[in-house]
């Protein structure tokens, strides 16, 4: 017997979907922004030559790059409150994990952008008598930021998809909303297909835009 698709039942949960979608978008925007700030600060710190500055940042980045995000989210949710002996609400624990994860990758993107600028640029600016701040602001950053944008947009796209992992700690994002609706309707095929379509509908235009940006930077 062929399966009879019925997407109609999903309309009944419209306000749940809207809520789930906004949670997903809010987590994406919030953790991308937080990660960007961490990335700029830690990326700058990595440029210092002092080991006691760079080493902690290095380990922070590597710990978050070399452990699965799912493990991080679960760890922040279950273990961190015990370690700090404070009660962390689920939304905060989960958000913290996602933000630090994004921060680790942003740090690498920022550092990579800065060191990709030719050594000659640094020496020419120094030879003119620019201080570190002046050469960073007027010479290095204007060139480096252009190169940082495409990888940062790519990482943000990955980050939006990663928010679906919040599902495991019961944050009511798009994915979690899906599981709620499935429990109510017993229609996993329609529900998870729709969830996938919604992620795609948000991200596809973003990737197109990112590709255009990359082409522009390559010029």
């Amino acid at each position, binding site marked *: 017997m062929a399966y009879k698709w019925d997407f109609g039942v999903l309309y009944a949960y419209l306000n749940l979907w809207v809520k789930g979608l906004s949670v997903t978008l809010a987590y994406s925007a919030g953790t991308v922004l937080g990660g960007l700030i961490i990335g700029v600060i830690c990326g700058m710190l990595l440029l210092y030559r002092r080991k006691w500055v760079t080493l902690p940042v290095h380990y922070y980045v590597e710990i978050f790059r070399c452990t699965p995000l799912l493990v991080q989210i679960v760890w922040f949710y279950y273990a961190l409150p015990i370690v700090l002996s404070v009660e962390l609400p689920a939304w905060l624990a989960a958000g913290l994990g996602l933000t630090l994860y994004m921060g680790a990758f942003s740090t690498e993107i920022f550092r990579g952008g800065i060191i990709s600028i030719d050594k000659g*640029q640094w020496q020419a600016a120094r030879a003119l008598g620019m201080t570190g701040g002046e050469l960073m602001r007027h010479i290095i950053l204007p060139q480096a930021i252009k190169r940082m944008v495409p990888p940062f947009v790519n990482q943000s796209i990955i980050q939006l998809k990663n928010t679906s992992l919040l599902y495991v700690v019961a944050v009511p994002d798009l994915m979690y909303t899906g599981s709620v609706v499935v429990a109510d309707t017993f229609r996993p095929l329609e529900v998870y297909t729709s969830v996938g379509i919604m992620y795609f509908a948000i991200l596809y235009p973003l990737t197109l835009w990112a590709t255009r940006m990359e082409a522009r930077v390559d010029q």
Partner: protein
Amino acid sequence: MTNSVLTNSASTGDVMVRVEGLRKSYGTVEAVRGVSLEVHRGQVVVLIGPSGCGKSTFLRCLNLLEAPSAGTLQVGERTIDFGSGHSMPHGRALARFRARIGMVFQQFDLFPHMTALRNVMAGPVIVKKMAAAEAEAIARALLAKVGLGAFTGRYPRELSGGQQQRVAIARAMAMAPEVMLFDEVTSALDPELVGEVLDVMKQLAIEGTTMIVVTHEMAFARDVADRVVVMDAGQVVEQGVAEEVLLQPKNPRTASFLSRFHSTIGERKGPLSS
């Protein structure tokens, strides 16, 4: 101090650069092994020697792009001692020291996100905090002087190598430096573009710019240099008036180095001579 970019008097006498016993080592390798040098106002000193002899490293020590390991360096009135017990200037003091020394590099190193005009304005505006209008006037005059008056709006990628290098010279000159350092500035250029850059340098020399030039252009050394300094293995092996050093070298190491260039030194090109 007057802004003497365009009218430099060629009075000799006062010492602009004095170097004593300068050393630079990387780990156990000593690239510069006790070099002393004195350059007077308006003088053109050309440094020659086989590649790897330490001449570029020495030049980069003069504006502290490389930190000397030992010795004394005086530029203008400012004297710095290096070695144990002395600390390199850093931060703003280091930047201010460099601001009075112009440098032009082998690879031009123009700022690719700025037009030729903005490149030349960069030093005065960013370092000296000069008003944009004033800096622009200086920059336009300098670009006209290096023959690029019609190219002010071009980006570096839209210019030939020779044009880029002339912009780089103008950029360094815009700071009205006390001395100009040239580090093999024609080595990365196609042969047909070398002349236009050397012509600009000759012009600067005639106008009395104090210059220290590392180059393999022996004809330039012969025609423009007040003094030629020969380096080998991190040391000065011979120095003196260009004609003497180039044509009658006393040191066998100079002679063997120069033997490769004799066809260039022998022929006389322009009427220009020092």
